[in-house]
């Protein structure tokens, strides 16, 4: 048991960041977020933007999987619904301010989350995962077939971010938008988790029958988890569509679902800070692998970097998931927690 610090007033632990060390990290993050676009090149900023989109989507999956214990293989379907809703709404009403479009995308996606939640009334674990997989394929099938709306396999263009006539284009313009939504998404999720809804979700995750005996309506709170998770994914899909400017079913393959699961596992199931780290890690990984492959090729010319990269990518993704599951089930956040506790206690060991 730890004895390094005590909170006298219980209201203090209602604070979001009760520890000094946490506030310090937060302050560093704020400063970094502000100066980042000033010091990085466009490519790194592009990766950062993709990371921010991934963070929003991964928060959604973590709420569902890490906090409510409902495994979902269908996250890419929610992203797709958000993306296509954006393409359609912004396509027909280009003068609509983008925050409105993003909200519509989130709302539409969360309604489809209602459908995905229904199997969870009866199924758990692997069977539930399979039902979300079925959901994914049904959604993608509909998107492919609804050609007049979605462009089918050809995909669809999305107009620039429109803010009352002001058009936001390119990496630098997107950065503040993405950042604002990430911060908002994190704060709202954190608040949810420290109030009634979040407690009910965690209770369902840990022991559903006991949760029910404590007055938690399982159907209602599982449904809320699906709709909230879908909302986040819808917003992420919307941001993605706006940012890339063009979407097709290729952007929402099953691999995308797996990547999001990897983000949640690598970052740490049931931690928001971990989600940020996991999303960054998984988004940056292909870039690192590219560099590694290039380096290997320079050492050993017979090595075909371009053909090897896709395989290396899969290998490293798999490795990252397996290694974290085995050695640090709490993910990157678990690593941070050990470090934080060490620093809080320092120089005492206990």
């Amino acid at each position: 048991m730890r004895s390094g610090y005590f909170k006298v007033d219980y209201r203090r632990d209602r604070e979001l960041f009760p520890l000094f060390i946490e506030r310090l990290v937060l302050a560093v993050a704020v400063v970094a977020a502000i100066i980042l676009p000033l010091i990085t090149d466009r490519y790194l900023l592009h990766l950062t933007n993709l990371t921010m989109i991934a963070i929003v989507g991964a928060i959604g999956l973590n709420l569902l999987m890490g906090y409510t214990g409902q495994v979902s293989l269908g996250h890419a379907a929610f992203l797709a619904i958000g993306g296509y809703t954006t393409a359609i709404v912004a396509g027909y009403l280009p003068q609509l301010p983008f925050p409105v479009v993003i909200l519509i995308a989130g709302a539409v996606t969360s309604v489809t989350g209602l459908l995905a939640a229904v199997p969870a009334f009866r199924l758990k674990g692997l069977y539930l995962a399979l039902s979300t997989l079925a959901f994914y394929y049904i959604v993608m099938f509909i998107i492919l077939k609804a050609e007049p709306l979605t462009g089918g396999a050809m995909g669809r263009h999305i107009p620039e971010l429109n803010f009352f006539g002001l058009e936001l284009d390119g990496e630098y313009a997107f950065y503040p938008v993405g950042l604002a939504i990430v911060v908002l998404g994190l704060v709202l999720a954190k608040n949810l988790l420290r109030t009634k809804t979040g407690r009910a979700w965690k209770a369902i995750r840990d022991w559903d029958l006991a949760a029910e005996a404590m007055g938690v309506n399982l159907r209602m709170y599982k449904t809320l988890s699906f709709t909230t998770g879908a909302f986040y994914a819808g917003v992420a899909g919307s941001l993605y569509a706006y940012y890339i400017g063009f979407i097709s079913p290729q952007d929402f393959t099953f691999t995308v679902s797996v990547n999001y699961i990897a983000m949640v596992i690598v970052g740490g199931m049931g931690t928001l800070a971990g989600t940020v780290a996991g999303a960054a890690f998984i988004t940056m990984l292909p870039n690192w692998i590219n560099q590694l492959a290039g380096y290997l090729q320079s050492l050993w010319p017979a090595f075909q970097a371009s053909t090897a990269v896709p395989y290396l990518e899969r290998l490293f993704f798999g490795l990252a998931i397996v290694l974290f599951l085995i050695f640090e089930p709490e993910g990157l956040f678990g690593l941070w927690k050990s470090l934080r506790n060490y620093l809080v206690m320092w120089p005492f060991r206990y």
Partner: protein
Amino acid sequence: MEKDPVVPHYWHRRNEVLPSFYNYCHEKGKVCLEARKLTLRFGGITALDGVSFHVQQGEIHAIVGPNGAGKSSLLNCISGLYRPQQGEILVRGQDLVGLSPDKISMLGLGRTFQRLALFKGMTVLENIFVGRHSFIRAGLLAGAFYWGKGVREDIRNQAMVEEIIEFLEIEHLRNVPVGELSYGLQKRVELGRALALEPAVLLLDEPVAGMNLEEKEDMARFILDVKEDLGLAVVLIEHELDMVMDISDRVTVMNFGRVIGEGQPAQVVQIPEVVAAYVGAEGQRPA
């Protein structure tokens, strides 16, 4: 949720802190829970065979019996986890059979489980806080934006949780994940979680099983305090008669899914069938 006919009208008033406990618990001796001719079958097994019993307000009512007697099944029927094929369970005149466990908990029935059923990933405070679920009306959006009335409501309910933590003497453990606690303390947290429901009837399934003597004594003291200070009715399932003899007011003895004896502790152990059941099942004489 307001319009739900299942929730008693005074339920929203239960939102205040501890004193509201007394509002409907003061009529000592009144029957507050009654089971009539419950029959529950699992395939070929008859777990409950026409079981009837009732609990009075302000008493500790023990249910004892050998392994597989149907004690837990009875409790699970009452709290809605199992659905009996026949019979009814009445709380203030209303039949509970067929209601979902979350509705039943709102009627004032709090329970603990035979095997530990705490929320492993949560702290002591959070675990007990889950028991306040039905008392908090602010929903998802109020929570997400964390503003105004919803926050005050949450803090008010936390005050209640803190009171329970104090009552159970686990203040120093409030932020510890429950998985790190000893078995005895985990059982105590489970009791706290059930108390957070502000129940009129507390259903405890073997609360002292597997504990050492000191832990057993602590738990017995808390159960007595719950009865005396809060005026609750306690249904206490126990395997062994010893502790039951000390703290319970009335005992129902079960064997093979049937009630084979009922009465005050001292009388019950005189009943020949009870003696036979205990000697037969365990080779030991009841204390």
